[in-house]
Every structure is written in C-alpha cells, then in structure tokens.
C-alpha cells in the first residue's frame, strides 16, 4: 500500500495509547450545559430564547447570524438560566446560553426517513444548515457554506478527514471503527449535495485497523476509496491532506479547497450530516477524547455539546496529579485554558490535561538560524524570518514572506532549539495585518 503524504512535517510522539482502545462511552446527562453562541467561524448565532424559557433537547435556542453562521440548539431539556459571558474553549470569554437540565432528556420530534437519498441536493443542504453543523475537526467552518461553491468551481471530490494527526486524540479513530456505516452514509450525502463523483477517506498509518475496516466496506464502491497517509504531523491539515489524497495544491494567498475541486470534511461531521438528513437531528452531541497522563481513566466520550470540561474530567475519575495545564483540543494546536468550568463545543475533539512538569515552559534563546523550522514547514515558509519581522513590527515584510499563508500547525515551534514561540509571533502578525485591513 503506497502511503501518501506532503512535503515537510514533524514526528511528535502520538501519545494515543492512553485512549485508543477505549470504546466510546456515553456520558450521563450533565446537570447543566453552556452553549456558546460562537462555536464556528463566522457571525455568532442570535439567541431566540430568554431566561426562564423551558427548552427541549434539540430545540433551536439561537438562530444563524448570517449566511456564514450556524444556529445553536439546546443539547438537554431544561430551563434557560443565564445568557451572558462564559469561558470559551478558545481561552476567551464569550456570549453563551446556560441551560439547567430537568433530568428528563425530553427531545423535539425527530424524523426517520430511510429514503433520504431521494431528496434534492438543495433540500439536503438546507437540512444540514438547519442542524447547525460546522466542521468538527477544530476550525469549525459552517458545513453548508463549504457545500456552496460558486458555479464556476465544480467539486469532483469529497475528502473525509480521518487522519487525526494531533497527539492524544482518538475520537475520530473510535468513530471510524464503531460508526463507519454512518460515516459512509454521510459521505454519500455530501457527494450528492455538490455532485462530486469521488469520495475519499484519508486515514493515517497509525490506525491500520481503521484503514482495513474502510477498505472492506468500500469493496463494492467503485467511487469511494481509502487513502492511507504517512504518519506525520500535520497530515490532517486541510491543504496537506488534499495534496496527499489528490496530488493537488490549494493555491496560497487565501485559496480554498474548492479552487482545486475538493471539499474536505471531518469524519465526525459526516456522521452529523447523516443524522441531520435522515433524522433531522441537530448537532447537539459529539465524541470527545479526554486524555493525558494524569487522567485516571482516559476515555472517548459521547457527550452533549455544552457539557463542562469539569464534568468530563469527573466522568473519567478525576486526576491523579495536580493539573499543570488544561488543553482544549490537541497539544499541537489546542488552546490552553484557565479553567475547567468551560463548555465543550461542536468543534471540541479533545481535552488533554498536563501535570506541572509537562506544562513546563522553556526560556527563549536568540535564534541560531539553524533552519530546522524552514526544513519542516509544511507550507514551505521561513518561520524564523517571519517571526523576526513581526517582532520588529515590519508587518509589510512579514506579509511578503507569507505570514498569512501559515496554517498555524505549530511544527516550527515544536522543533525550535531556541524555544522561540514562532507561532505566537506569527499569530500576532496575522492579527495586526487583519486589523490594518479592517481599518482601510
């Protein structure tokens, strides 16, 4: 089997052994959930409930704030108890709706249409939009927007991202083993929506059983195939996966996958799409990995959106050591957050806890110009040069050197012997440049 990959990249320890053999467990209903209005890229959703309202699980509580936006739904039944600022898994404070549960788990009426594939592409897409689905791999781009390419950009391939290259995370791996049929059903829906002829599932080589499983299921599906990818970070980054799977390079300077006829969706998103279309079920639960050396029983948990991280940790039996760092997402691109009183969102693929030692920060040294960052940059940038330009506030040069093309995978910071926070500088550069543009 020829493994596919991309130029550059790094090999961090994958640390998946903690949770990869743990069958997905359903989390008992939490006492309360906090549903942030912004769980996606685009305009925040607008609340349509007020404090004191009784809501059912699956009921819309906030409507999409525009085309590039998604609605939010109650993930448990109960009462709206607060609308205000709450801690957000990206480390900020953001507007959210708190629902205190009634312990009943009363749902809105769901459908079950087995002939859903007879629906028109438009109808399929509107069900996806109504279910409030955004990318579940991390970035959280609204799925219906990705499925609305302009007429001059035909899509021929849907790629499902099952690479899961972030260390520790095993949620996608587990759903690929346990819910492969749903994923494939979702893939077929996605293909129908954009009239794509080919469907590809990209999986990294450290999940050989998932690769084998999909190969078996694809035996009689001439249009579907599995692409085994080399074990290398960031293999799951959108542009890198597209290159590995199709040998097409997405144009830089803000080019989108649709420019090369591809739409990429996470495998978890495919399940959400399937459930949205067949059952009209909104996206209110997902699988999240809770892992780390200090988690007593690391688990893959199916939990309601809005469940507090503190509750998830408790469900895993708590911690064995003092917590040094709380990481929302994986350790390469995830956010360190100050409190466990933070809800998981639609994009929360993992929660990783570090002890004090693992959270240790090394002091920064001057750049040695060793060029390790240059050698591994998957976007072929010169990270040290960009960081330096940002440091000395020459944003024009930083932009010329491609700061906006950075995918923030963190590989450069990972390999830097001088412990320079390259990604932090690059992030500042991106922010300053977009601020400047906004002013113009």
């Amino acid at each position, binding site marked *: 089997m020829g493994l596919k990959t991309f130029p550059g990249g790094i090999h961090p320890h994958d640390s998946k052994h903690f949770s990869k053999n743990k069958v997905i467990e359903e989390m008992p209903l939490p006492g309360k959930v906090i549903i942030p209005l912004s769980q996606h890229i685009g305009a925040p959703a607008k609340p349509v409930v007020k404090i004191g309202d009784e809501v059912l699980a699956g009921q819309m509580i906030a409507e999409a704030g525009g085309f590039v936006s998604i609605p939010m739904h109650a993930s448990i039944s109960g009462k709206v108890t607060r609308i205000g600022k709450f801690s957000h898994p990206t480390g900020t404070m953001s507007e959210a709706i708190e629902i205190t549960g009634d312990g009943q788990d009363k749902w809105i009426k769901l459908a079950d249409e087995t002939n859903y594939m007879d629906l028109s592409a438009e109808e399929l897409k509107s069900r996806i939009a109504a279910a409030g689905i955004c990318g579940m791999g991390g970035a959280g781009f609204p799925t219906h927007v990705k499925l609305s390419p302009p007429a001059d950009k035909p899509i021929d391939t849907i790629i499902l991202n099952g690479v899961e290259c972030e260390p520790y995370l095993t949620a996608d791996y587990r759903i690929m083993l346990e819910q492969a049929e749903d994923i494939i059903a979702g893939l077929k829906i996605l293909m129908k929506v954009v009239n794509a002829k080919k469907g590809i599932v990209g999986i990294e080589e450290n999940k050989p059983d998932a690769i084998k499983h999909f190969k078996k299921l694809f035996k009689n599906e001439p249009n579907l195939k599995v692409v085994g990818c080399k074990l290398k970070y960031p293999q799951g980054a959108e542009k890198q996966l597209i290159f590995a799977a199709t040998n097409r390079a997405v144009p830089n300077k803000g080019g989108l996958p649709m420019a090369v006829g591809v739409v990429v969706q996470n495998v978890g998103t495919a399940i959400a799409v399937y459930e949205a279309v067949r059952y009209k079920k909104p996206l209110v639960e997902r699988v999240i990995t809770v892992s780390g050396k200090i988690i007593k029983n690391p688990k893959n948990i199916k939990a309601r959106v809005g469940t507090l991280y503190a509750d998830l940790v408790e469900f895993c039996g708590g911690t064995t050591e003092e917590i040094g760092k709380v990481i929302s997402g994986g350790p390469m691109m995830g956010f360190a957050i100050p409190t466990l009183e933070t809800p998981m969102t639609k994009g929360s693929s993992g929660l990783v806890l570090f002890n004090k030692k693992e959270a240790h920060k090394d002091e920064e040294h001057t750049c040695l110009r*060793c060029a390790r960052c240059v050698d591994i940059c998957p976007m072929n940038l010169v990270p040290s040069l960009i960081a330096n330009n940002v440091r000395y506030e020459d944003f024009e040069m930083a932009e010329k050197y491609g700061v906006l093309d950075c995918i*923030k995978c963190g590989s450069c910071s990972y390999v830097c012997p001088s412990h320079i926070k390259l990604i932090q500088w690059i992030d500042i550069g991106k922010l300053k440049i977009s601020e400047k543009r906004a002013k113009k």
Partner: protein
Amino acid sequence: MSDVYAVSAAPHIKQRISVSSVMWQVVLALTPALLAGIFFFGIQSLLLTLYAVVAAVCTEAIIQMLRKVPVTISDGSAVVTGMLIAFNINSASPWWLPVVGAVFAIAIGKQIFGGLGFNIFNPALLGRAFMVASWPTLMTAGWTATKPLSKIFESSINGLNVQLANMPEVITSATPLGVVKALRDTTQVSRDMAETVLNNLSSTDTIQNLFWGNVGGVIGEVSAAALLIGATYLACKHIIEWRIPISYIGTVFVLTYIFGGINGLFSASILLPFFHIFAGGLILGAFFMATDMVTSPVTKKGRIIFGIGCGILTVVIRLVGGYPEGVSYSILLMNIAVPLIDKYSLPRIFGEVKK
C-alpha cells in the same frame, strides 16, 4: 471553586532539543577527530585543544559579565569554537597560539556582534584567519609530519628521482596541498614532469593515507575518517544537513577534475579530485564550519548556492591563488554573502501560483 491554570500559546508539546544540546552534540561529533589528532601527533594535541577551549570559555564569560548579560558558557558554543581553533593549528605550536586565537575568535568573532546567533562570520574561522595573518610561519610552515609520511612521499616520487634535487621547494613542503601548490608553481622542472609527480602524488595509496590520517597537517584535519564519523552522527541527529557539505564537496570534485591538472583541462587523473577532497581542511570545513548554522543560509536553495560558492572559491584559491589551502577563506567570504543569498532564495510557498 475552580482553579485557574497557566495558559500559553500552542503548541504545548516540544521536541526535546535546546541550544546547548545542539552544541554539546557538536562537541561530541568533534571528539573522534580530536582522538585521531592525539593518536597521530601525540598528547600535545590534547593540551593545545584544552588551552583553546579554556581560553574561549573564559573569554566568553568575562565579556558577558562586562556586558551585564547572562553568562551562557554552559551552552557549549564556546567549547565548539575553542576546539575548532585548536583543530586549525599544528601540534608543534606554542601554547599561546591557540589561546590568542580563541580569545580573538570569541571576542571579535562572536561577542562583539552580540553573541551566539548574531555573529556574521564563523568565529573559529575568523580566529584562524587572524592567526594566519599574524603568524604566517607558525601557521603554515614547519608542520609536524606523522611518522610514515616521509615514506609515502618517497614512494610517490620514487622512480622520478631525476631532477628531484632541482625541486627543493616541492620536497620541503610538509603538507600534501603544499606539494601540489609547489608543483603548480615550479619553474624548475618541465610541466610534464610536474604533472607526472602530481599524478603519482594522487595515488590510491596517498588518498587512503589522507583518508585514515597518515599525513602531516593540523590537529583536527588529519583524519578524514574520524571527521566523517562525527559528521555522520550530526547528520543522523539532523543537526547538520546534507545540502551544504554535499554541494561544497561536489563542486570541489568537479572543478578539480576539470581544472586540477597542470597540462590543461581534464589533464589530471580521476584520483586527483579525491586527493583534493581528503587533503587539507575540506572535510572539516565542509561538515563542521560551512554548516555553522548561525553563519549559513536558512533557505534550502540558499544552502546549495552557499556550498557551490564555497567550492568555487576553494578551488580557485588552491589552484591559482597564493595559498595552498583556501577552505577557511572561501567560507569566510561566503559568510558575507549569506544575507543576500537568503534574500534571493526564498522558497516557493506551498500552493504558490507561478507568475
């Protein structure tokens, strides 16, 4: 009730590597060459190396104290510079030579620019250039030969005993490259005769001896094999990368094959390029000095340009310049060009559309 935890920017995991781990690994990689120096030239080599290392480390500490910046001597970078200084002198040098060279290398070559990471020139090479300019005889003449050396030269030149007496400047050269230089410059014998001697000199025997270390020269350059052991280690650890050494040595190979002969283009034997690679400081320079991360280009393309530039300059100096050896000057000259090379060799961004 809820604790507040420390936050920081991603990524939250880090490869286990630091400036000092890089530098100490370079020290480790230089050790086989030092052992070879001790083996071939005696314990004096070790003493001279120690003098240089101690001088380099002390200079760094004193200057950093004067500059009121953290003293970073434990990072090993001054140790590397000290070792490289000692590697560039011969084992019969007086004790003060490596000391002066190391002080100059650290003070003028490194700290004056702001310390590690800011220097423009490879400090050790700058120190060597200073020593060559100040004490040319000490640095280039009277080099100690390893014992079997005279025999090799005898056998190489054997059978040509004709007119040997007419070439005193050839046979008094203690180093192989010195012999080559003298042969190229001599007017006392016919060009054909010089060519024959040159071809005999670059015999497989000589090259084998150069490779293992059985020739006269400076402490650190004596055994190409020992240097290559260290270089292989660094390459495996991704501390040096293939582009600079390979393009450098490759260029020297091609150019000496074309221009190395005395009677016009391609007149040399195919063994001559190997002779040029293993004689002198090319192996040390290409793997341990040209690859100095601070003073070489960061871009991949730039590293190849840098290596080729070093190769061209080295061959020009060896074949037509005034010195028998040109490795250190060519690297220093190319160090100056690094910012320019970087500027014009930026990589094509992934997905960048061709204009």
